[in-house]
């Protein structure tokens, strides 16, 4: 299978992606992760204002066949959540890097540990 791994993003070994924007980072799950799960039917996200530690489970995605925690690739404070995926979880299957994003954090920690696209591809 040929999974999308956009060049402009960074990745966690637990299959989340990180989009470093000006003040915030946007986080979602990768194309590989959504394909492994299959039809996603339920998403649980934190509240705005919650703080998360690096590698802490901040939410979960549930498909017809499995449940998976989603881990914070970096530490930070939740400043926005994607309410659209609560109502339409299938957005994560259809557009994991665009409309299917999950949360935005104001980061409070390091980024050095994140994987570059080639490194992430190598572990799949």
């Amino acid at each position, binding site marked *: 299978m040929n999974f999308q791994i956009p060049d402009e993003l960074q990745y966690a070994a637990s299959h989340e992606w990180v989009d470093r924007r000006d003040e915030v980072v946007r986080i979602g799950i990768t194309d590989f992760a959504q394909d492994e799960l*299959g039809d996603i039917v339920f998403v649980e996200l934190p509240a705005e204002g919650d703080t998360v530690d690096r590698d802490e489970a901040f939410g979960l995605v*549930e498909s017809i066949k499995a449940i998976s925690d989603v881990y914070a690739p970096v530490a930070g404070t939740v400043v926005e959540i994607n309410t659209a995926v609560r109502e339409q979880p299938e957005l994560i299957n259809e557009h994991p890097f665009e409309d299917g994003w999950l949360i935005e954090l104001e980061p409070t920690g390091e980024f050095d540990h994140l994987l570059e696209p080639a490194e992430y591809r190598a572990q799949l």
Partner: protein
Amino acid sequence: MSLHTPPLATVHRGAGADFTDFGGWEMPVSFDSIRTEHTAVRESVGIFDVSHMSEIVVSGPDATELMNLLTTNDVRSLAPGDAQYSCILAETGTILDDTVVYRYPERDGYLFVPNAGHGKQMADRWSTYARKRGLTVSIHDRTDDTGLVAVQGPAAIETVESVAAGSIAALSRFGATRTDIDGVDCLVARTGYTGEDGVEIFFPAEESTTVWNAFDGVQPCGLGARNTLRLEAGLLLSGQDFDPDDEPRTPLEAGLGFVVDFSKPEFVGREALRDLEHEGVDEQLVGIRVDERAIVRSGYEIFQDGDSIGHATSGTMSPTLGCPIALGYLDTAYAEAGTSLEVDVRGRAVDATVVDQRFLESLETTEETK
């Protein structure tokens, strides 16, 4: 135990299937998205490789007597080419497995189909009882030599008609006939596990690729869609909705009393069930509609007003109905349709309602937001 590989494994791998271990068999769980496969079966037609199911052939002068002793339904009511759903019980009345019993259309004897991984156990059980009773029968476990596919959906019959040498349109529900498919001698039965019209096709295992390829163009479906389809139809899964070790249940608790024929003078488990029928059951299987967006899965505990009243055994998001559904056992006092419940979903109390377990008929179909 080493994993059985179905004859079609290479073909499925070529089609991009994901696999799972099911009852000791490495079987395709999905080819496309479960939703795509599920919808194909509800609206048109899909094909499943179900060669993991067991096949036991019983023949000889005392075959009917032995079948009637070890299954709950009345085998004597089967004409040649008829089939029936049935249960196989322990002496205690607990379900060991469920099965379909086929009386061969063209020759003496029966084929019955236990679930994956139960073939040897059942062949041994049949042999043991035959010996004990001095019955003249021959019993063969044909699981490894038999291929089985299911073609299911409203367009299944016309699809099979287009590839079969003989006509199957006149086949009644639970009827079976022999016909060739692409030169392969097949037993075609109007049975299935999806809640749709359709057939199951038995053939020699070495001809699996020929038969599968005869249905080229039909949506291949895996065990994932098989599970969502059977749940919507309210059909039970052996090993999950009942299991002699992990979920010991009688047919009366499991809502399978309709395949228990008490008019038979004898069958294994009869005495225990007779007593239970008089006393009434403490718990029974119900359908559960989940009223929030949360999937209820096997083992989740069920409450009413804080009191534990049962647990779920199966659950999924219903692709057809657009809401989560589940099966579970409840204290009989709470089993009436319309009863409000709460299910503990990972520490959260989720509202749910008891409904008729034939969800396809009991719930309104909603157009899912897409």
